[in-house]
């Protein structure tokens, strides 16, 4: 279809660095807002949440790329690494604001990780992302070969843990984190469905 070709044409012309640039901007922008009162009277929590939510959104965008190609014929594969690395960058910012500006003491950070389930869950998600970020370079892809693809399936549990972390930290059952969780579960279910169809199991990641 024409519109599909047109979108794919645009995607080909947009350089990857543009994605890095556009998505890197919210980091200093929100920090600036936090410093100058633009995030309200409690900027620490607000900044922590902004970074965390952007990270989750970027992870979800990353999860959309394969199904978009498979089911809609839209090819954004060349941006996938950028979204993954940007997501990791925002997770690190989220974690830093939490540890340095919010909790403010290393002992308390550790106590929270072991004692508070939602933080344990979030931290587990971060640890799963760590090897993915470290192997997001051409050299690692070449060296690891087929194992690279297997390793990077860790993103599935990582995103799921991130979404569960969001649901758990709110007071009461709130709708917004549940919507994120639903979207994540749906995107993961798409993978399961494809794997269970004979013939698809081997060839697709």
């Amino acid at each position, binding site marked *: 279809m024409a519109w599909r070709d047109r979108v794919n044409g645009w995607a080909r012309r947009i350089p990857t660095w543009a994605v890095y640039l556009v998505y890197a901007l919210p980091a200093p922008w929100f*920090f600036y807002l936090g410093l100058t009162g633009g995030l*309200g*009277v*409690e900027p*620490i929590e607000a900044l922590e949440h902004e970074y965390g939510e952007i990270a989750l959104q970027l992870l979800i965008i990353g999860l959309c790329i394969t199904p978009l190609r498979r089911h809609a014929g839209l090819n954004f594969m060349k941006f996938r690494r950028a979204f993954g690395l940007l997501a990791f960058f925002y997770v690190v910012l989220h974690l830093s604001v939490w540890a340095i500006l919010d909790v*403010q003491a290393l002992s*308390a950070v550790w106590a929270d990780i072991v004692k*508070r389930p939602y933080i344990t869950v979030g931290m587990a998600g971060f640890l799963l992302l760590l090897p993915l970020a470290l192997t997001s370079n051409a050299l690692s892809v070449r060296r690891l070969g087929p194992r690279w693809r297997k390793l990077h399936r860790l993103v599935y549990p990582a995103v799921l843990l991130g979404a569960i972390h969001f649901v758990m930290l709110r007071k009461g059952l709130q*709708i917004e984190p549940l919507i994120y969780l639903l979207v994540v579960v749906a995107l993961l279910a798409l993978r399961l469905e494809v794997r269970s169809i004979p013939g698809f199991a081997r060839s697709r990641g």
Partner: protein
Amino acid sequence: GGLFSTRARAQAEGLEPNDWEEITQYNNYYEFGTGKDDPARLAGQLTTSPWAIEIDGMVERPGTYDFEDILSEMTIEERIYRFRCVEAWSMVVPWNGFELADLLDMAGVQDGARYVAFETLLRPEEMPGVSRPVLEWPYVEGLRLDEARHPLTIMATGIYGRDIPNQNGAPIRLVVPWKYGFKSIKSIVRITLTDSEPPTSWNKANPREYGFYSNVNPNVDHPRWSQATEREIGGGLFSPRKPTLMFNGYEDEVAALYEGMDLSVNF
């Protein structure tokens, strides 16, 4: 009386009230949404006049008490109190109000009464948040009668000498300064005297996390976060945490209410 009310006491304790914007732009009032800025954005449409409070249950003179009639009987005074949210942030608020005990005396408490139950207005057409089942509506709270009659416990009708804004619980709300903020129920339409412990909203929603008493206690953590420290609103991006005080700094006045009770069980 004025025993607890003076600015001098607040000054002696180093209590610096938060400014108007901080107090009125950062609120938990889930009837208007769960975001901190939702109440300030959405509570403007709330009709707060006329207003009446139904006082019933074990009282001598049950009935509907008009807000203006109540005010005409009460002496409004200023109380500068610490306000500690269960979410581990805090403010200092210069409330205007009167002692709840005076209102209870107006209705006349019967002998067997031991608890006071409170209810917030439920008006879905003016409260967009109640379409979501975050909590069971209407919001309800409760105090033991001796807590309710304690001279620190007030019904607030103003802040900084102005009418209390809708997002802060207009036109009349409870303030119990030694308990987590959610006990200080807003926009009260009903007060019921009973002989048994009344249900309370957050306790119904999650009894493991929110007890009936909900006294500020740095030694009893919320299951999901520490209550040992708090962040003062208004300190900006590099605001340091400070230690939370037992009974939010009102230990001398209220500890006797809980003598012999295990506060980690009755949290």
